[in-house]
């Protein structure tokens, strides 16, 4: 057997990239076949579409009053619509034939009110119940038309009436508010996905330890290759999910005209997605390392607690930052690795974070990720083959592959 028998040749030797890709591929296909995961994704999307639909319904549904007009709709119609617009109501004018038709239309609820401006000395408004807004709109319209008529008869030139020009000092305010709202939803989503995919990573690590398949895997690859494949595979899925949600949210918001400034919305969504990538890399490494210390799913809860506390803390600080994006708490925590992915997007959306601040937060986070992966890789390697009970962190560091 000095020369290797060619029929036995196992083929090429897979390199690191190939092994990592194989592990990642297995993680993805295993999750895609997990019914619970698919149901979760579908539910999230359905929920999101539901929220969008609700927004659309609130913004438009039922709030457009209809006014029937008997008689001179040519002049009164535009006047009523203009008055309505002035106080922010889209009034629809419906021409009606006579008083009988008007009464019937009001009674059946086809219109919210009917204005009888036929031959009578004074116009009359028919309503089911008294409605101050409607009355004010109609009154203003009727008197406006009457005044205009009388002025025209008196020969006054109407073009001379000055129109007030409006300049809003707090122009961006509402827009920023909207971005902050989007950021809060984004941070909530980010928090949910980080916890979910962090748990996936942790469960996967423990599953391999509990089923002892890890011994078979480590006979063919190094611990860091297994760790990298697992994190990347699940990360791709997580990223796909948050991008899917982002696309649906932006697409829906644009299609239904829910947001004022589409560009800002897209910016906020993109920053949330990028922060997800950083947050996931950090937490996935941390969750994997913690999970490698135990050998049963039941013990997972206790070792994951510190990371969970950090995540939940970050989530609440993020919500708080929405109310006070320039506050000390928000500013400081937006640099703390682990918290920054949940706080910085809110500050960015509120327009409170300068570009250099974001850059610093990203840099600090990247350093933390490198540290977590390197330290984590050592602990993981040391603890992976200790399949009995719990391993202490220090033992694992010392026992790397011993």
């Amino acid at each position, binding site marked *: *057997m*000095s020369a*290797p*028998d060619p*029929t*036995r040749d*196992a*083929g*090429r*030797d*897979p390199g690191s990239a190939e*092994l990592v890709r*194989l592990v990642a591929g*297995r993680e993805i296909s*295993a999750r895609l076949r997990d019914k619970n995961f698919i149901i979760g994704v579908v539910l999230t999307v359905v929920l999101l579409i539901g929220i969008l639909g609700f927004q659309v319904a609130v913004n438009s549904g039922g709030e457009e009053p209809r006014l029937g007009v008997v008689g001179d709709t040519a002049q009164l119609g535009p006047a009523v619509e203009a008055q309505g617009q002035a106080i922010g109501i889209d009034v629809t004018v419906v021409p009606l034939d006579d008083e009988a038709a008007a009464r019937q239309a009001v009674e059946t609820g086809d219109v919210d009110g009917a204005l009888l401006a036929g031959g009578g000395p004074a116009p009359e408004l028919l309503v089911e119940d008294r409605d101050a807004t409607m009355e004010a709109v109609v009154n203003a319209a009727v008197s406006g038309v009457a005044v205009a008529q009388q002025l025209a008869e008196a020969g006054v030139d109407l073009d001379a009436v000055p129109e007030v020009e409006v300049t809003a000092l707090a122009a961006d305010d509402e827009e920023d508010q909207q971005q902050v709202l989007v950021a809060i939803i984004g941070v909530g989503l980010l928090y949910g996905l980080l916890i979910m995919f962090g748990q996936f990573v942790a469960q996967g690590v423990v*599953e*391999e330890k509990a*089923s*002892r*398949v*890890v*011994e*078979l*895997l*480590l*006979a*063919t*690859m*190094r611990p860091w290759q297994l760790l990298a494949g697992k994190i990347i595979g699940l990360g791709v899925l997580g990223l796909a999910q948050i991008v899917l949600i982002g696309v649906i949210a932006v697409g829906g918001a644009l299609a239904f005209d829910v947001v004022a400034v589409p560009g800002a919305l897209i910016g906020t969504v993109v920053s949330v997605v990028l922060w997800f990538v950083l947050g996931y890399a950090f937490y996935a490494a941390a969750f994997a390392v913690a999970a490698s210390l135990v050998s049963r799913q039941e013990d997972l809860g206790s070792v994951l607690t510190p990371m969970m506390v950090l995540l939940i803390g970050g989530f609440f600080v993020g919500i708080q930052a929405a109310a006070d994006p320039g506050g000390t708490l928000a500013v400081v925590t937006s640099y703390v690795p682990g918290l920054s992915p949940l706080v910085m997007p809110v500050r960015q959306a509120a327009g409170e974070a300068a570009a250099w601040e974001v850059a610093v937060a990203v840099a600090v986070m990247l350093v933390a990720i490198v540290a977590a992966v390197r330290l984590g890789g050592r602990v993981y390697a040391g603890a992976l*083959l200790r*399949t009995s009970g719990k391993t202490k962190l220090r033992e694992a560091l010392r026992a790397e*592959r*011993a």
Partner: protein
Amino acid sequence: MLEFDGLRKSYGDNQVLDGVGFAVRPGSMFGFCGSNGAGKTTTMRIAMGLVLPDAGEVRWQGRRLDQVLRRRVGYMPEERGLYPKMKVGEQVAYLARLHGLDRAAAARASEEWVERLGLGARRGDPVEKLSLGNQQRVQLAAALVSRPEVLILDEPFSGLDPVGVDSLAEALLDQVRSGVPVVFSSHQLDLVERLCDSVGILARGRMVATGTVEELRRREAGRLLRVVVPDAAPGWATALPGVRVVSEQAGDTLLDLAGHADDQAVLAAAVRTGRVAHFAWREPTLVELFRGAVADPRTEQEVAA
């Protein structure tokens, strides 16, 4: 040659391996015996790179076994390990790919081995749905699917029914016939005796005996004497110099003679008790060799003294 050379390993004060070494020829089967905790699993884990030895190395064809070379080794760990929720066929194919087969070759090899080990109908079932015996077959398929050049199996026969033992034995002999060196550990010494070309007995971190079963027998031959004396009183042989009574049952006596003991004196003593129905040297079974080899030498000396 597959060579285990001077392996040492200690965990703290506990010296688990203290210079373990043996060699296995290609196309031969090596039975690795030893009591629980003797260090068999640690030895195999060192070969698979799962444990770093304090000293020594494992070589295949003169090259130190490293991560690349290890892909050509089929391994079955002592604690069986498979993904419980993964389908049988896919699992075996996945492990084949980790050993370097490409997608198509892995799928083909997986199908072939799953079929050969009688699991064709269960190919699409998750492993956790299979009986333990069938899971063991999947484990074997996982070890064989990459067409390994070397097989290292830790307790492959444990937990199998007699039919399962036979089919696994047949599969291993098949591998041996095609030139693969096979190392397996087992407590079933009759099986080791039947299958293996050579045997190694590990005790207290050292190899206390290595060689073919024949060689071990020859080394121990001329020591065990079976004498059947139906009329003798119990304990008839205890006073003879250099003789230890291994067992005695209604006159059927097994005696262990030290080097200087005189077998003719034993015969004379037997004749004195009355009729002698049987008097002959006996070839030791592997079980007896094993007992003799792993017995703590100090306690043996005390008994002999």
